């Protein structure tokens, strides 16, 4: 019954969303007024290399062929799906002839490493502290914490991150200014390399965790305050159940339900990267890659990154849908 009435329609919906999402991503860059061939040639010419205009016209034809941009959009679309089923996103135009999958493979571990950790950390910290502060909202520390968070939360991320960089990399010089690892150090599974990576990730992570946790804190505190006012909590209190149990098992657990959905969405979005973080800290990742791909009209790279992101978000949403009864016993798929 569950399979027929819920799972199969839900899976069909899942595949339809992915198909439509990727189709939209295929066409949108082609409507943009950026021609990837012209953009590449413009870059070469703007840097001083002299190209005779007649030669450039021939070059346009050569690059159009090499980039696989010959033929109608329909033909390109069919070819795109044919390749995609083989796991091939094609080559990057601007970073020709590097395959898109290679670029994604290089950037993905940095993005996932940083953003998965910080997203989960900020979710856990923000929700736990927010939950306790919401339950104990009459205490002085709760009000002070609320004031601090109200000050931090509206800070523009760029300003906050740059402030951290200046404070901890320039004034106190505790952390490196940029990069994913030290200059000259190549990736290896050694303790010194891992510590080096952690050291470089510290400032970007701190900036994301502080602002992220502040955001979760406020949401969690508000939900907990609402749940706290519900009848079942009053009954529990009147029934003499220990306060600690009421706080964690009755209030915070119930308050977590919408936050779990939001966590799943946040995790799905990490594959789009964290552009400003990557820019401020010159941190490698998918955000910068996607940004430069949009700027240069690199259709294949745009499609590669966004297709992954679409698949990740829809998959996580599907998983949450299927796992929700575990968190909320009131929900059952019949």
């Amino acid at each position, binding site marked *: 019954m569950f399979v027929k009435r819920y799972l199969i329609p839900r899976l069909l919906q899942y595949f339809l969303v992915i198909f439509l999402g990727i189709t939209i991503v295929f066409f949108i860059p082609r409507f943009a007024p950026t021609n990837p061939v012209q953009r590449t040639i413009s870059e070469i010419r703007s840097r001083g290399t002299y190209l005779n205009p007649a030669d450039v016209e021939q070059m346009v034809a050569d690059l159009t062929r090499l980039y696989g941009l010959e033929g109608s959009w329909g033909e390109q679309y069919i070819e795109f799906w044919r390749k995609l089923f083989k796991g091939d996103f094609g080559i990057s135009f601007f970073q020709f002839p590097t395959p898109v999958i290679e670029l994604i493979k290089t950037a993905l571990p940095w993005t996932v490493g940083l953003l998965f950790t910080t997203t989960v950390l900020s979710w856990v910290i923000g929700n736990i502290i927010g939950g306790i502060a919401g339950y104990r909202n009459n205490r002085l520390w709760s009000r002070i914490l609320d004031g601090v968070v109200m000050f931090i939360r509206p800070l523009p991320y760029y300003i906050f991150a740059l402030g951290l960089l200046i404070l901890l990399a320039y004034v106190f010089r505790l952390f490196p200014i940029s*990069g994913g690892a030290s200059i000259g150090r190549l990736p290896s599974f050694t303790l010194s390399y891992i510590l080096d990576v952690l*050291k470089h990730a510290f400032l970007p992570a701190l900036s994301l965790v502080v602002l992220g946790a502040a955001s979760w804190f406020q949401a969690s505190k508000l939900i907990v305050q609402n749940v706290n006012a519900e009848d079942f909590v009053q009954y529990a209190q009147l029934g003499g159940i220990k306060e600690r149990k009421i706080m964690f098992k009755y209030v915070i657990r119930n308050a977590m339900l919408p936050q779990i959905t939001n966590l799943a969405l946040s995790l799905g979005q990490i594959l789009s990267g964290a552009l400003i973080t990557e820019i401020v800290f010159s941190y490698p990742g998918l955000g910068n890659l996607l940004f430069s791909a949009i700027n240069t009209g690199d259709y294949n790279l745009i499609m590669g990154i966004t297709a992954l992101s679409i698949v990740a978000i829809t998959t996580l949403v599907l998983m949450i849908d299927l796992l929700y009864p575990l968190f909320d016993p009131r929900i059952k798929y019949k």
Partner: protein
Amino acid sequence: MKKLVRAFALVTGLVLFAFMAFGQSIDQLPREDTLIAGILTGRVGTPGNFNAWVGWKWNDRGMQNLANEPLWSVDFATGEIVNCLAAGDPVYNDDFTHVSIPLRKGVKWADGTPFTADDVVFTVETLIAEPGFNDHSSFATEVERVYKSGDYQVEFDLKQPNSRFHTKFLDRWGCTWIMPKHIFEKVEDKLTFEFNPFIGCGPYKLHSYDPNGYWTIWEKREDWQNTPTGMNFGEPVPKYVILQTYSDEGSKIVAQLTHQLDVVDLSAEGFVATLAQGRTIRAYQPGFPWVVNNDPCITGIVFNTAIEPYNNPEVRWALLLAIDIVEYLGQAVDGQATLSPVHIPALGAYPEYYIEPMQEWLKEFKLDLGNGEVFYPYDPDVALRIAEYAKNRGYYVTDDPEELKKMFGIGWYKYAPDVAAKLLEKNGFSRDKNGKWLLPDGTPWKLELLEKTDTSHHSFKNGNAAVQQWKKFGIDAEYIATDAHATLQGNGEFQVTSSWPAAEPWGAGVDLYRVLDQFNSEYMKPLGVLNQAHNSRWSSPEMDDIIRRLKATDPTDVEATVAIGTEALKLLLKEMPSIPTYGYAGFITWDEYYWTNWPGSENPYAGPYAHWGTFKHMLPFLQKTGNK
């Protein structure tokens, strides 16, 4: 709970200690022997691919500026063309259908293989054979045959006369590089070949690179004597050179202030902030205007002459005269640039051969305002006006008029909004009751200016300044900043844009062929079709004739070349398809904490930039400070 807090504090302390113990910003390299420079073109998108003959390859990550050698190199600071892999000038036959190039003996590739004429012949034949190479059509359409007449002599038979054929190998900021035959001949698919590790004839070899594209390290070759740079200038001093990029201006500044970046290009604002904060940091000029003001590029405004009303030279002139250039220069670069009244920058040989000799003609040049009224737009004293602006801003500037002309330019044009109004009215324009300009058909004149989004680029600075000036004049002007500018410009989908007003000259010598050929009507395309010629889409039979005559002139014949070049500049000035404003101002800063004797304006022994090919020519002259 207390235990948890203690454990957390312990772990945090240990991690921080480990960070301090293990985290070095430069791994294993001695800082006192290492020079760190910024990459102008940003993060390298293809870190493991050094095949510069295919697509865009971030050549300033060290390939063109450290590890590679061209046949010839332009040094705009000295005004010289340096023989690199070539042993001397090219020798053409009388009708420019054959050219013979002597090559330097004793040069070796970084792997020890001798460089010979076989490498040059192989390169050209390979480029002709494979349509995917950037320079394929350039050689395929021009070269009939390439062959060697000796181990160090290459001969080219050309399909048609071309007195500038050799400039394909002249490194200005890139050129056709020579492939090491012994490596490429073994490769089946030369287009996808990554050429990693990179092997060049320059004084540095590849040490390592960041798989994420943020840095590349180059190490001085032990046999640096076998490179053209070593032979011409001596041993480069830094043992290692790191080319590094930062995604954000703020982190670049912090890096330089903490002595982690020796030379870098900044925005105008970042440049001023860095100079103000860093005690060991200097700019190209020791005092105001600080910037590199001898870059061989001219910036400005371009009109789309294929559409109304910008197809009318009098309208273009009116828009020029509506600009108060002192205010404009202040808005764009705080007065820190050198103006040029013609379509080449006021640097190197150009003032001496072109701009100074044109002074009388410029002063006599007049515009017909109708009804017998004329106007002489040239202002030879603009430098004095800019000096006043600078003084009002609190900067120290000399009172010597000659020095001021070197700083701010020999001349530009008067601010004459009343004359601009007369020119427009002569052409049917009018104003509404609010003083806003109307087109000849009575509709509001809405001027849109297309510019780049990069706020540190001179396209953005020129564009914004021009829009401010024209708004002040009463035109409903606005700018549109877009990353699609290249395509929109190419298709002619713009009214006015702030791209290069003319192609940059080579930076040395007097030849303007490169500047003028972009205006050749042969290359012009109708609106909507991608145009590879000048964005203005302006051409004329007179200019075609000039280009034809220049192409048939020996570029080493200075007198004849200058005469034709001057004729072209006068024509461009009369037609004004684009407004030349100021020479490219380079906002570079050098940190003197580890290295000194940078090629500043007081001793410009080489080009000042780290991203040009001449960077390797600077390195033998740098001195260590002894700081560790």
